[in-house]
């Protein structure tokens, strides 16, 4: 039977404690990263990653807006529209600002509108992916 050395036991216990505490406290990184693209990395002084995520998420969202994409509002009618809203709202403040100024209204005659709608949803999904990755970095689960 394999036994742990005392130093291993202490290291294991402190690692478990850090993970438990981190699993609770790490959510602020997700919320920060969700609201402000790249901020989850900036808060951990990961400047390059944060800047790249910011550029990509904001760039894709703005490009979607420029292509006359549709920004979904909260609704309970169409399942696809609900999923679209979930994707859109993952963009954080970009979604709230755009909604507040009345942006994101679909333009029926623009053939690139569907591209724009897809890009805005994708921007939100990329943002939430980066926010959850920032939490992993915060917890030490990833470099």
């Amino acid at each position, binding site marked *: 039977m394999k036994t742990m050395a005392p130093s291993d036991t202490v290291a294991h216990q402190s690692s478990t404690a850090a993970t438990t505490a981190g699993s609770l406290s790490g959510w602020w990184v997700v919320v920060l990263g969700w609201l402000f693209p790249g901020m989850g990395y900036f808060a951990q002084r990961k400047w390059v*990653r944060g800047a*790249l*995520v910011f550029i*990509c*998420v904001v*760039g*894709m969202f703005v*490009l979607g807006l*420029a*292509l*006359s994409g549709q920004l979904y509002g909260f609704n309970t009618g169409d399942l696809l529209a609900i999923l679209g809203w979930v994707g859109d709202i993952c963009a954080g403040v970009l979604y709230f600002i755009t909604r507040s100024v009345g942006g994101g209204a679909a333009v029926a005659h*623009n053939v*690139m509108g569907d*591209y724009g709608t*897809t*890009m805005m949803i*994708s*921007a939100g999904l*990329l943002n939430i*992916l*980066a926010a959850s*990755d920032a939490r992993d970095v915060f917890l030490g689960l*990833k*470099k």
Partner: protein
Amino acid sequence: MSISHLTAVVLFALFASVVFGITLREELREQVRYGCIAFAWFLGGTVAAGWILYFLNPH
């Protein structure tokens, strides 16, 4: 604003690949490599799908 379909695809692939590389790999070298592969798959997949659709309905 109006851009070509190819430009839209390239920009989409670029943005998505960068975030994929950052989030799905750890080392810088792996991140760059994965980002490039993802970019190539995005573009290659789109072009391949376009040709498939063309042969399905050439008119």
